């Protein structure tokens, strides 16, 4: 995620306590070798053709992490016959695209299991975790 940067190390009392001891505080920040000082905002919804490498799609989304996925990509109860357990780690946009285009399976999954995951992803809607990544798979036309 883009904002795993210095802001997470800061106390959050609404306003920083910088007024108390500016020099000391800044010195501390200055000394933080290794910690990132630059965080770049990435588009939530990428607009270019290849904007897919880094984004991730959890299967299923965290709100349904207990569910399994059937062959059509629908969420079903755990241990439903013919359905698959959640993906161990989120799929990347690149993997999804490669599955959509060339039928290449996801790491450590069978062809059918990959198909089920992809069917789930193709059903994603605005507001569901992973949708914006999936939406980024759009190609420019013309």
């Amino acid at each position, binding site marked *: 995620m883009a904002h795993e940067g210095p802001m997470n190390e800061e106390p959050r009392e*609404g306003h920083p306590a910088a007024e108390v001891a500016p020099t000391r505080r800044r010195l501390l920040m200055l000394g933080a070798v290794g910690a990132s000082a630059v965080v770049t905002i990435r588009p939530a919804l990428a607009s270019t053709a290849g904007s897919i490498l880094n984004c991730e799609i959890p299967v299923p989304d965290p*709100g349904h992490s207990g569910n399994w996925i059937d062959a059509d990509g629908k969420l079903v109860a755990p241990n439903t016959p013919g359905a698959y357990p959640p993906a161990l780690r989120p799929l990347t946009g690149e993997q999804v695209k490669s599955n959509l285009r060339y039928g290449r399976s996801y790491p450590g999954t069978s062809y059918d299991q990959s198909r089920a995951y992809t*069917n789930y992803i193709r059903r994603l*809607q605005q*507001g569901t975790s992973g949708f914006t990544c999936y*939406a980024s798979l759009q190609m420019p036309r013309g």
Partner: protein
Amino acid sequence: MHSFTVRIGPVGFRVGSAWPRPVAALEAIYAGYPGPRDGIADFTVRLEPERPWRRFVRPSVAIRGDFILPDAVPMALRHGFLAAEMGMNLQMALGQRRFLLLHASAVERDGRVLLMTGESGAGKSTLAALLGERGWRLMGDEFALVDPVSGLIHAFPRAVSLKNAAIAMLRAEASEDRFGPELDGTPKGTLRHLRPRADAVARMDEPAAPALLLFPRYGHDRAIRPMGEAEIFVRLTQASTNYVALGEAGHAALARLVKTVPTRAIDYPDSAAALAIVDMLWAEQAR
């Protein structure tokens, strides 16, 4: 091509459908809405058979238009109305460049706007719909449009998409004629659409200033937390589909929103608790 046009807030849509049914459903739920300004639609959505013969044989609806997701699953024809709604959402998410688009609900009272943002399932849509029946003006349950010049929020009062338990909750509040057909077996479960109250439609050209921003989270014990500006800023860039595309104007609009609008994260166990928190925070900020 069966055709339907509508204006929702500042945005005109044209929907073309290979089948009559989705258009009939759109006409019913958007009864009383105006057409696009000057008869010119900002965006075009097409509902087409995925392949020519699929118009008649096991009909399935592919969502096409100005902006598309090429590999999206086609939908069953009985969900054609939902396909149209998704198509309109997609045009906004991918194509909107006049306003900073936030994935947030917006309701207005006394000329001031309450914004609620968060992932699907956070409850922003249901809460906005409930508030819209209880003295607030519903400005939109899905997208809030921030005018980069004025900083005002423009209404985008689409039909509210109610899911599962929220349907019963709103049927207790709104009359039956404002509801669309029940759509079962959709990717989000059972859905019903609710037309906003007539005054929300009549006043959709009135923008208003944002006064309170909430990040609600459903299913947790009641809690209210302040948030740091940088965190709010970053989360809103991720809740916006066009922050980067708007460039400098987007940056200025978002920085102004973060700097001027009081913001809280709220956790709530049920909607009654959420509405109580909203009442309390609203009264606080109005003082």
